């Protein structure tokens, strides 16, 4: 019980108190670099700006001290509820994402994930579908045209991309044969032979045996490259950040569904968005980048290696630290990737957005499912039990 609480608190604190504010800073710096500006550097403590790292703190103080306005004629209850409904799913989504493997310390065994449920991926989809309510209600309860338009766009966009998001990762379920994220991470802690498919035609000639030595980590991104692209697109569209920010398109709709929010309620929407960036990074890392897995160094290898020198308990601890570090470096990389995308592409037009979803991603994800099924059948022909794509 204590372990569960500790794990939950750890991930909550890391994500909300560490990552989310940090990302606002990364975003500012990233945009500054890409636009050839200097970027956040004004907030200072006794003259020291710390590279602009004080801005997140200043933001929080500003948001907390601002007046909390509720527009006249708004539905007060729903207006107050909406930011909470927006933030809570983002916060609880991280519960199923494993940030470390299973470790043994003496008699206790534990897995570094807050809730190790069997249908982890479905849980993520469920949370994603519930996240829609925050924006819908915000837009509707504000009784403002901007908000309403933003909410209508948000609804249509989120429902559409939810469908394709679910379909795009079906290939991953098929390859790993599980919906459990911890299982997936364990499965990705291995490698596979890149040229294994050659076995289909003939066993390799002796001289070409080196081909067998070429191995890649058994990661989702290598097994399902198409799914990776599609899933990343969909989940970014779910988060409604640029270039998919039609619901809050500032040049047309002021701030979309949360136009009529101020103070900490506005802050909650803002925070939800940034937490979602981390959640996206975590989910993509867990599904496609091996989660906590270190490429070419499986858990047994690390543990055995360290244990031979310093004993088993210490080996597990080291292994745990390496895994957690590895996971969060992947998260940081993916966050940076999202920032890069966010500042590189112009906003879609609405019809382009919908066309992308229904006419490009949907057929491609169906194709991906089909190809994966065909590939798995083929792999079974070659060597029963071996995974290949």
């Amino acid at each position: 019980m204590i372990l569960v609480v500790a794990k939950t608190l750890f991930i909550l604190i890391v994500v909300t108190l560490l990552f989310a504010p940090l990302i606002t800073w990364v975003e500012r710096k990233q945009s500054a670099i890409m636009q050839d500006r200097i970027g956040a550097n004004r907030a200072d403590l006794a003259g020291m700006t710390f590279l602009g790292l004080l801005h997140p703190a200043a933001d929080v103080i500003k948001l907390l001290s601002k007046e909390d306005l509720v527009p006249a004629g708004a539905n007060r209850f729903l207006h107050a509820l909406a930011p909470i409904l927006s933030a809570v799913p983002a916060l609880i989504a991280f519960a199923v994402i494993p940030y470390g493997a299973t470790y043994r310390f003496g008699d206790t065994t534990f897995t570094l994930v807050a809730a190790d449920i069997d249908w982890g991926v479905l849980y993520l989809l469920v949370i994603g579908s519930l996240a829609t309510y925050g924006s819908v209600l915000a837009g509707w309860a504000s009784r403002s045209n901007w908000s309403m338009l933003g909410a209508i766009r948000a609804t249509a966009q989120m429902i559409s991309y939810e469908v394709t998001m679910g379909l795009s990762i079906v290939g991953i379920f098929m390859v790993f044969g599980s919906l459990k994220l911890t299982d997936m991470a364990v499965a990705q802690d291995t490698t596979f032979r890149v040229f294994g498919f050659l076995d289909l035609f003939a066993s390799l000639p002796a001289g070409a045996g080196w081909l067998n030595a070429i191995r890649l980590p058994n990661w989702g991104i290598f097994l399902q490259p198409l799914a990776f692209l599609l899933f990343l697109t969909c989940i970014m569209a779910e988060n409604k950040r640029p270039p998919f920010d039609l619901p809050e398109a500032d040049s047309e709709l002021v701030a979309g569904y949360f136009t009529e929010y101020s103070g900490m309620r506005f802050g909650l929407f803002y925070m939800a968005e940034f937490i979602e960036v981390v959640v996206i990074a975590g989910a993509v890392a867990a599904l496609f980048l091996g989660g906590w897995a270190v490429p070419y160094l499986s858990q047994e290898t690390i543990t055995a290696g360290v244990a031979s020198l310093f004993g088993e308990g210490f080996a597990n601890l080291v292994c745990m630290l390496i895994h957690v570090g590895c996971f969060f470096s992947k998260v940081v990389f993916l966050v940076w990737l999202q920032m890069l995308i966010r500042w590189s592409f112009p906003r879609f037009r609405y019809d382009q957005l919908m066309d992308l979803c229904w006419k490009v991603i949907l057929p491609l994800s169906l194709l991906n499912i089909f190809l994966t099924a065909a590939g798995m059948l083929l792999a079974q022909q070659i060597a029963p039990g071996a995974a290949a794509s």
Partner: protein
Amino acid sequence: MSFEMFLFYAFAFLAVFSAVAMIGFVRHIVAAAMSLVVTMVSLAGIYVLMHAELIAAIQILVYAGAIVVLFLFVIMLLDLRDGGLGPAARGQNLVKAVGVGGTVTIGTLVVASVSGVFSVNPLVESLPEGFGEHRALGIALFTDYALAVELVGLVLLASIVGAVILAKRKID
């Protein structure tokens, strides 16, 4: 009372309360939709308690995530400023609804308990390994019930075609 039972009653109360709220006493149609969501989610909780995890997930995904959002979407599209329920529809109907609902419920329960309606098979206490999990249910779906899955596909196609032809703004 075990924790499981406590959760069941809590969910049951929430489900019934918000269902009554939906048809009885909310002032605005969006509030009615939100009550429906609460009912759906509580039912999903009950499904989890009854070892039907997949159903629970799908319940939230489809009902809360798609169906009610669709309702909200249409409500927003129609832009019902006056609350949509109409002022006259409330007080009198509430009395009527509570009256009819109460009578029918009590009647049902009395008849049921007298006639022993609920005397069904006893519960199986030792469920097979992994009962209700996605894997077992998925295998059942695509082996024994494959035909039903295909038929559902046709139903969905029919509804898409029907809904598009009815709701499309310009058709010729």
